[in-house]
């Protein structure tokens, strides 16, 4: 049964009857024997793929299966930053598509994802970064992505709490994208899940994939903790565990999984209304609507699946941020957590067909997948529906590593992005 439309009238009506008429936002059905498309991973990317399969391609015989809970992986663990100021053309295209979809996502889904285009500055703190970001601004202007180079005085104006003098990490300027910002990450997953459920798709939680059945190079079914589920097409959208799913299907991905950490402070009064990223020192910070300072750090440099991360990375991040934002030095941190990010050699994602017929992968978003969710889902739905990539996904095939056709964002994005 489709859920009731959310509106100011619905709130008024429910207010008059003690909020007794709200229904669950999405159904929790048991899996059927067979679906046309099975998507593994009910995070933002998986659910967005399902949503655009239904909306753009009319395919609603879809199940999205998830080993944990909905949006409990990297979708619920990121620092919610949204931007599209990438250097390379294929990246700018897919990230800017995502940004444009974010701008109207609350209306499209009838679910408030709290998209807040508050502006985003990437600080240049070394001469190398100054040159790199000036180059990115030129590239963005050619791509039609509005960004600008701002001088230190303008950075100070936009972010009054910043210390631009250094000495160790002076602010030499910044790459400013006024359209960038944040959104509520859980709401993105919940909104897509509700919309998918309304279209008659099945979102199945606590359903872990234990094996993938293939015959004659074609996918047949997935075996799960809730039984065997047959499918014509299978989309693997599982971020950190992509290598494990690929192994079940009998191929290998150019992916390595590492923990990435984030933390959040106690809530304080509003002090910073833009997102600030300092890539040289692996620290980025924004203030949530609740007043918490949301801080992202760097990745561990070795493979792990612990969702925890190394302690010294927190120390490095906080040490650098305290010099850049002296007023946070006495803030207490409330929580710290880690997510397992799937890193590719060129720091760009993989949206691709695979050696197995009917299996498609969407992975490799590494440290910056949240911002891409709508664009990634849009492009992945096109890939799954048509069996071949559309214009957005074309450059992101996994054969680019064999052909030496990299989409190198490792320099443009610093390390964390």
């Amino acid at each position, binding site marked *: 049964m489709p859920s009731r439309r959310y509106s100011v009238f619905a709130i008024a009506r429910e207010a008059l009857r003690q909020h007794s008429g709200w229904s669950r936002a999405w159904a929790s059905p048991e899996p059927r024997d067979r679906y046309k498309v099975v998507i593994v991973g009910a995070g933002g990317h998986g659910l967005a793929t399902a949503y655009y399969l239904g909306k753009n391609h009319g395919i609603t015989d879809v199940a999205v299966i998830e080993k944990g809970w909905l949006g409990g992986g990297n979708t619920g663990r990121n620092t919610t930053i949204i931007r599209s100021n990438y250097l390379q053309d294929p990246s700018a295209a897919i990230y800017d598509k995502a940004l444009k979809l974010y701008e109207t996502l609350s209306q499209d889904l009838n679910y408030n994802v709290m998209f807040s285009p508050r502006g985003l500055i990437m600080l240049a703190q070394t001469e190398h970064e100054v040159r790199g970001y000036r180059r990115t601004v030129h590239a963005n202007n050619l791509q039609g992505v509005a960004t600008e180079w701002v001088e230190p005085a303008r950075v100070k104006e936009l972010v009054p709490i910043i210390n631009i003098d250094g000495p160790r990490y002076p602010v030499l300027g910044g790459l400013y994208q006024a359209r960038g910002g944040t959104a509520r990450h859980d709401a993105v997953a919940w909104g897509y899940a509700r919309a998918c459920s309304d279209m008659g798709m099945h979102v199945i939680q606590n359903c872990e994939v234990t094996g993938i059945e293939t015959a004659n190079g074609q996918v047949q079914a997935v075996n799960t903790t809730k039984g065997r589920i047959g499918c014509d097409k299978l989309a693997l959208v599982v971020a950190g565990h992509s290598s494990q799913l690929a192994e079940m299907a009998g191929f*290998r*991905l150019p992916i390595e999984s590492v923990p990435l950490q984030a933390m959040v402070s106690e809530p304080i009064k509003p002090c910073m209304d833009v997102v600030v990223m300092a890539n040289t020192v692996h620290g980025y910070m924004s203030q949530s609507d609740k007043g918490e300072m949301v801080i992202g750090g760097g990745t561990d440099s*070795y493979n792990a699946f612990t969702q925890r991360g190394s*302690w*010294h990375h927190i120390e490095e991040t906080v040490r650098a941020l305290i010099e850049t934002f002296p007023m946070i030095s006495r803030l207490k941190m409330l929580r710290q957590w880690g997510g397992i990010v799937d890193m590719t050699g060129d720091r760009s994602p993989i949206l691709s067909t695979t050696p197995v017929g009917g299996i498609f992968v969407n992975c490799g978003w590494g440290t910056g997948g949240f911002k891409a969710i709508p664009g990634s889902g849009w492009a992945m739905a096109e890939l799954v529906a048509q069996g071949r990539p559309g214009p957005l996904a074309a450059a992101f095939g996994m054969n680019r*590593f*064999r052909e030496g056709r990299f989409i190198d964002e490792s320099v443009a994005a610093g390390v964390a992005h």
Partner: protein
Amino acid sequence: MLILTCPYCGVKAEETELSPGGEAHLKRIGPDGTAEEFEAYLFARKNIKGVHFERWRHAYGCGKWFLAARDTHTMQVYGTYRAQTAHATDEIVANARQARAEWVPDWPQASEAVVG
């Protein structure tokens, strides 16, 4: 915090003293290699969730490269060994098997490990 014992100088080093070098025992591809072989050598990684063999350098110590067997899921260290070694030692295999009974080495004969 990850702590590994350097098999050369014997120092118990924590991770800020070390530089990671990625998956161990990769076979270098020669000039006659195909595009597929080069791709596999450069990019395709096992990315194991479990018993993982990797390269480390004791960067702020003796400076030498060594190899470590570590569990990427539990963070347990099964042992470290010298870089001039074809496979992990029998002792490390035994440690890993004790923690993960289902795990089997993916090389033919563990006992043929050559220590250089």
